[in-house]
């Protein structure tokens, strides 16, 4: 479980995140949705402690991220942020192997090699394992970074817009992978722009707007026409497909 208490974030006088108190359930896929600038990335980065500690507390499985040693937290949660565009010249296998750093500190044992092999297979990276990252396409590089986070094999996985650059096959493949992690007892927090991925795969949805959480709950409770229309200031119709919401955001209302 992740408990966020009175967490806020301000940059140069601009409030990016209003004081927020929030609980993210363990053993579920939680989708974080909302328009641009809603504070989704900031919230996920604060939980993953890659942003400097602001006022408020974040507890991951009971551990305060501000005071828990980084090495310990890295075995509790893995985080993949959005890319800055600076690519290391690492081979894919070496990058994925760095995901095991929190466990082996550079001395991989059989368990680490097995985790690296699993992650490479899971993200279909075996044919690319010996390639340099800077020779890959955006989507391939994204899969390599996802495999690194997956190889960390932590109870919590936090992904900031991981579908960027992924083609539809690999985007769905990622969600299948996350669902499998969840079924094995793992917990996932994922920032999503595509509402239908949230509708189809998430167990819990957190909607944010202008730095504040405006709704939380089951997908069918949050992903409704009125709520989404207000969230995005755009009229959005929602229908049902296979028992789950289907958001028709691409259609202009008649």
């Amino acid at each position, binding site marked *: 479980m992740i408990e966020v208490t009175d967490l806020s974030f301000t940059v140069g006088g601009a409030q990016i995140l209003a004081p927020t108190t929030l609980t993210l359930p363990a053993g579920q896929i939680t989708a974080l949705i909302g328009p641009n600038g809603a504070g989704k990335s900031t919230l996920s980065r604060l939980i993953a402690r890659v942003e400097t500690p602001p006022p408020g507390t974040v507890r991951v499985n009971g551990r305060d991220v501000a005071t828990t040693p*980084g090495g310990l937290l890295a075995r509790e949660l893995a985080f993949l942020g959005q890319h800055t565009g*600076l690519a290391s*010249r690492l081979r894919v296998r070496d*990058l994925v192997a760095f995901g095991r*750093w929190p466990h082996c500190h550079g001395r991989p044992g059989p368990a680490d090699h097995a985790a690296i092999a699993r992650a490479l297979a899971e993200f279909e990276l075996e044919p690319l394992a010996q390639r340099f990252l800077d020779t890959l396409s955006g989507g391939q590089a994204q899969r390599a970074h996802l495999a690194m986070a997956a190889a960390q094999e932590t109870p919590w996985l936090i992904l900031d817009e991981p579908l960027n650059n992924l083609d539809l096959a690999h985007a769905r493949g990622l969600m299948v992978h996350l669902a499998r992690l969840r079924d094995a007892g793992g917990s996932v927090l994922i920032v999503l722009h595509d509402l239908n991925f949230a509708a189809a795969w998430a167990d819990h949805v957190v909607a944010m707007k202008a730095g504040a959480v405006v709704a939380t709950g089951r997908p069918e409770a949050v992903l409704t026409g009125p709520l989404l229309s207000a969230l995005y200031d755009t009229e959005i119709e929602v229908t049902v497909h296979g028992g789950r919401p289907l958001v028709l955001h691409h259609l202009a209302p008649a």
Partner: protein
Amino acid sequence: MTRPLVPTLAALTALALASLFVGAASLDGQAGLLLWVSRIPRTAAAILTGAALAVAGVVMQQILRNRFVEPATTGTPEAAAAGLLAITLVAPAAPIWLKMIVAAVSALLGTVLFAALIRRLPPREIYLVPLSGLILSGVLGAGVTFVGWETDLLPYVSVWLMSGEFSGVIAGRYELLWIAGAAVALAWAAADRFAILGLGPEAATALGLNPRAVLRLGLAVVAIVTAMVVVTVGMFPFVGLIVPNLVTRVMGDNLRAALPVVALAGAGLVLACDLAGRIVIHPYEIPAGTILGVIGALAFLWLLWRGDRDGR
């Protein structure tokens, strides 16, 4: 993974053997003495200098995430020289170890200043970083030269800042370079940490590292190496730039694997330049640093012209 290691080691061994037998004096008569007092120390000094500067270069490139920086072009030697000049003015009789510490601390301050300067630059403007380094090193160097001129210490200053050379190296006058060698060993022990920081501070945090601590460790390695080299044999430009760029092009940024090759190749390059300097106008000598300056400037231009093709 270790494929480039063996040929590099073989080339370095051949160069080291050649270095023992080339020089103004011939090796008959007191061969043992000549080897022991002059040739072996000179060879060791060139190897330590080259290895340490190349490793300092690759460490700096990883922690600052820019392929075009190295200590020699970012003001670190000038900062070390400023410290040396200051301690020479304030306490001319200070013991050598104290001067050493002052030079190292001063080099560290200069490197920290550079790291702080470039943090404000847009990360995608990769050429602004080395340009800022050249400007900073120019400013620091001009300051040191001015103070040296005013205080009649210019001969000392030029020994530190002008192209380094090994003709003055004899037993008892190069051993500080072993401290630079120790810094290289430290860098190798922390190679994975530097490579992870090369993925960015966020990725490093996510993997449980403290990016600031790794950055500090890297800056310390750079400062210690530069200070020891500047004080002992003077500065050698471009070693830290060319060698890491060529090696990581082949081997990538997995420093654990690449670092030994970087060290050996750096040692080989400096030793080769020293050997060439001893041969071309035999029995006189051209400083190894001068030869490196010529080769290095051309190679640096080539690297810049080749540009960002590796995505950095």
